[in-house]
């Protein structure tokens, strides 16, 4: 279950790191629910307080199932007249966006801080607390702070505060998880690794305006330039090179401009926030916001018990049923921006032959596994792309329906013959697979036994090795594993997250996959600006990836937020958490 944290982390960062977003994620009519959307007809439509949920969920691929009977909400929740309690799985108490690397702390940080650039519900960049302009040549970015952006202590945010954040990120002693080098700001390298006392590319034009010059034109730069508005005079007056320790001291006591003000933190337990009366977009409608640490797996239970108001629960038929029977739960469900896969080392003599990989795919009963784990709340994928993306096109791709005989034939053709013991053998070597995965894990706990069983019918012995997350990740990225299960994150643009994965020697190509045709197609894809002309290129790419199977794609699931219906007004999509606009939420009952 640990995977969830990490998976969320991937998703969050993926959303942060999107590049070249000329793409429209879902507003071109291609938006579709990730599943067959069975629950739709029942209670999902009209009669709800339409004023509150004016957000167009459908447009962003979100399936919203409102509660049937709010009056069933437990007393303990109804007694909370002026607070909203959000369940989170973990909290480390680092309330500094530039230092924290816990996805759940980020939820709180989104409510406490404003950013110069935001991400919209469809994944496109959006002006945040600043209005930004990009020069014609795409090298100079000008950020102008909006009026009324004030810190909790009453001071107005200035361009100096923006500058401070960039200098902190570029500091040689900065040891947080952000990486400013990807924004290509002029002079960062000289500052960080050289003796320069200032960064050439960062200029304060006036009290409200900051200008950033970059070395290189990059569609992703605007996302990588995203920073929170932090008050310099609070964190570290006269920040000098190497002064990071002073900033870190304030990690536990943040000062931002955001919707909610920091009040109190009980380590590992809960975080209390209060509405920021001076918030520039409007006063939050709910007075108190509480983040309460919930043990993994108990998310739904605590919402059902009224202990928390909203939490992200594992999506499963069981949880869905429990939430719906309770009556007072609103369910927000949308396709997870990523997919689960079986990674293979394509350079391994065993897997080098495409036929072998195809055989393994045919022998993997993906439909049954996915159905057992997620029911209708996930779908089997045959190409590495989310079905809410504009680049998604699965026409004419092979669906690799479970077929042991075909798999056997393919193995025969690839030269892996059955020996007298009924095992596959080629050149005197037996076909065995060492499979690494995390356990306990909702998917692998079912996938692995099924795979082991079916592959043994093919004459392939699978031995399983259970690793914990850091070990699995390290070994996978170092290409030390033969076969393993992992999940990958996706971005709205098909190039950002995928080109690095499938291009020869791409930094995230842990599979040693190499196909010159794919390389050149990806280069073609990024050089085009118009979506319509890009579409056929990606269609080709996915057709090839579907045939080549560098990895065995398994499923794309949904994310599910379960909420006590007494609070409404959440705005949510695959690409944006509702925390960014939580000030709009309201207690209805």
């Amino acid at each position: 279950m640990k995977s969830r944290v990490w998976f969320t982390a991937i998703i969050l960062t993926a959303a942060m790191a999107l590049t070249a977003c000329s793409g429209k994620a879902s507003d071109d009519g291609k938006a579709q629910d990730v599943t067959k959307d069975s629950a739709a007809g029942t209670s999902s439509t009209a009669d709800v307080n339409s004023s509150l949920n004016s957000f167009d969920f459908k447009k962003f691929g979100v399936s919203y199932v409102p509660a049937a009977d709010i009056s069933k909400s437990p007393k303990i929740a109804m007694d909370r007249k002026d607070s909203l309690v959000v369940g989170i799985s973990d909290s480390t108490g680092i309330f500094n966006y530039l230092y924290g690397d816990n996805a759940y702390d980020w939820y709180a940080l989104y409510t406490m801080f404003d950013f110069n650039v935001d991400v919209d519900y469809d994944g496109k960049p959006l002006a945040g607390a600043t209005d930004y302009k990009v020069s014609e040549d795409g090298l100079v970015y000008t950020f102008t702070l909006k009026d009324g952006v004030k810190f909790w202590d009453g001071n107005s945010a200035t361009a100096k505060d923006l500058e401070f954040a960039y200098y902190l990120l570029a500091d040689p002693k900065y040891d947080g998880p952000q990486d400013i080098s990807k924004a290509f700001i002029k002079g960062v390298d000289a500052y960080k690794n050289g003796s320069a006392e200032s960064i050439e590319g960062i200029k304060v034009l006036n009290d409200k305006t900051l200008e950033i010059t970059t070395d290189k034109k990059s569609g992703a730069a605007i996302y990588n330039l995203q920073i929170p508005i932090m008050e310099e005079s609070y964190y570290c007056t006269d920040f000098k090179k190497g002064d990071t320790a002073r900033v870190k001291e304030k990690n536990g006591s943040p000062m931002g401009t955001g919707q909610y003000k920091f009040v109190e933190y009980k380590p590992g337990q809960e975080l209390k926030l209060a509405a920021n009366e001076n918030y520039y977009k409007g006063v939050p409608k709910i007075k108190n916001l509480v983040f309460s640490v919930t043990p993994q797996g108990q998310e739904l239970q605590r919402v059902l018990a009224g202990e928390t108001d909203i939490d992200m629960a594992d999506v499963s038929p069981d949880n869905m049923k429990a939430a719906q029977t309770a009556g007072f739960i609103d369910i927000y469900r949308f396709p997870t921006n990523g997919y689960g896969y079986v990674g293979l080392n394509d350079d391994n003599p065993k897997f080098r032959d495409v036929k072998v990989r195809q055989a393994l795919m045919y022998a993997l009963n993906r439909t049954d596994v996915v159905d057992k784990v997620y029911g209708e709340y996930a779908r089997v994928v045959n190409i590495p792309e989310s079905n809410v993306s504009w680049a998604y096109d699965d026409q004419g791709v092979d669906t690799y329906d479970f077929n042991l005989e075909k798999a056997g034939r393919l193995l025969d053709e690839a030269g892996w013959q059955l020996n007298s013991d009924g095992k596959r053998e080629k050149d005197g070597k037996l076909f065995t697979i060492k499979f690494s995965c995390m356990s306990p894990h909702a998917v692998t706990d079912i996938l692995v036994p099924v795979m082991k069983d079916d592959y043994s019918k093919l004459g392939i012995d699978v031995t399983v090795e259970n690793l914990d997350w850091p070990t699995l990740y390290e070994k996978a990225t170092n290409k030390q594993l033969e076969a393993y299960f992992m999940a990958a994150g996706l971005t709205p643009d098909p190039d950002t997250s995928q080109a690095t994965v499938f291009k020869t020697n791409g930094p995230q190509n842990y599979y040693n996959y190499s196909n010159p045709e794919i390389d050149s197609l990806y280069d073609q894809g990024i050089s085009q600006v118009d979506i319509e002309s890009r579409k056929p290129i990606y269609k080709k790419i996915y057709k090839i990836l579907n045939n080549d199977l560098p990895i065995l794609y398994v499923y794309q699931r949904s994310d599910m937020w379960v909420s006590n219906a007494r609070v409404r007004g959440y705005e949510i999509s695959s690409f944006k958490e509702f925390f960014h606009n939580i000030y709009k939420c309201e207690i209805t009952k």
Partner: protein
Amino acid sequence: MTRFYKVLALLLLMFSVSCYSMPFLRFKDYAALTGIDLITNLNRRIELENLARTAQIHVFRSTSTYLLLTLIFLLIALGLMICSTLKDCKKSLDAAILTIAAALVSYGLQLTNTETSVADFFGKILLSTKTGNGEIAYKPSEIIAATGIGARLLVVLCLLSMALIAGARIIAAYEKYSDSNIKTPWSMAMRQFVRNRLAIIGAAIIILLIILCFFGPVFSNYSLLKTNILTAKEGPGMEHLLGTDGSGRDILTRLMYGGRISLTVGFVVVVLEILIGAAIGGVAGYYGGRLDNMLMRVVDIFLSLPFLPVVIILGAVMSDLDVSPQRRIYFVMLIIGVLGWPMMARLVRGQILSLREQEYMLAAEALGIKDRHKIMRHLIPNVIPTIIVAATLAVGDAILSESALSFLGLGVAMPFPSWGNMVQAVRDTNDFMLRSWIWIPPGISIFITVLAVNFVGDGLRDAFDPKMKR
């Protein structure tokens, strides 16, 4: 009386040998295979006889050497029993018990082969097909197989006859005991122990668990690893007595295999602890001085290691050492054993220190008895009771440690079951709340096993402690 037992046991043994002519394996649509078939066709393929004569050709390859061994042991036991009934010789009675036990052990070993299907207890079923060039190739087959009546009867009859012979032996020993007036400390302890009702219940439970865990699988129609997601998470019922788990595996079957692991861990860990602990403690206590001082500091270091954190860290290390899931359990044993020995060492050292002060040791010294003799004849027998008691209680601790480690996902790895990792199913909250059959039985099994061990340990402590005499 004893004679009646013996004759009965003899008859049962004969029956169990004759089990070999009964079906050991049953196949759907095919004729059954007997034990003799399995033995005579060792490492040879036999074509299965098709009843309907329409299905594809299946062949069977027996790999059951253990079954042959079992038969040999049984025949020897039979001979010994005949001998003993004719001549009333106690030695041959003891030997018979041992050989039957050996037969059962080799039969039990047969049952450890658990890869895919029930048939794999005894061999492999293959589907024979003609390849393109006319050769015959073999594929693993999906034919449904189950253990036959013969295989099951064999276990029951062997166990019964062993129980009968043991009964005869105990009666004989008891007669001898009540005849003579000599009471050794051992027989006194034994008497004390037998009078402790809890201890007897505990011992009975342990014996029952051993039998169930090691021979139970032969009565199950499901194999350990065979998954069937169509029947996943089914509640207890006639098909699956205790229901199925998340991958559709029979929980009762997994419980039995998990029990093997827990029991093995318990015993192996304790043997390790005794080997290391008693040796080091004994040396330290006997030789004393600087050596003692040094060894005791080492013991102190190990005693100050925080047990659970260190075990958890080692569990994480283990996952990197390319330890296959089957073999991980040995590392778990090693870890728990290595961290557990210092207690034993302290205990033994303390006991030896106090024994050295006893008058009879002084006397031994004065008489100039050899070191080896002093240790073997005078020290060790006096330390053994302490070790036995401590070891029994340590078995319980070891089982608990293993289950905790497996519960945290750092012990025995899936898909191989241990009671601890079966309880892990609770991480799925819905299973925890709605499907308690998945996680409660393994938890109760741990509890009952450890409780039984502790009953016995407690009884032994009272039995060996002269002060506790009633």
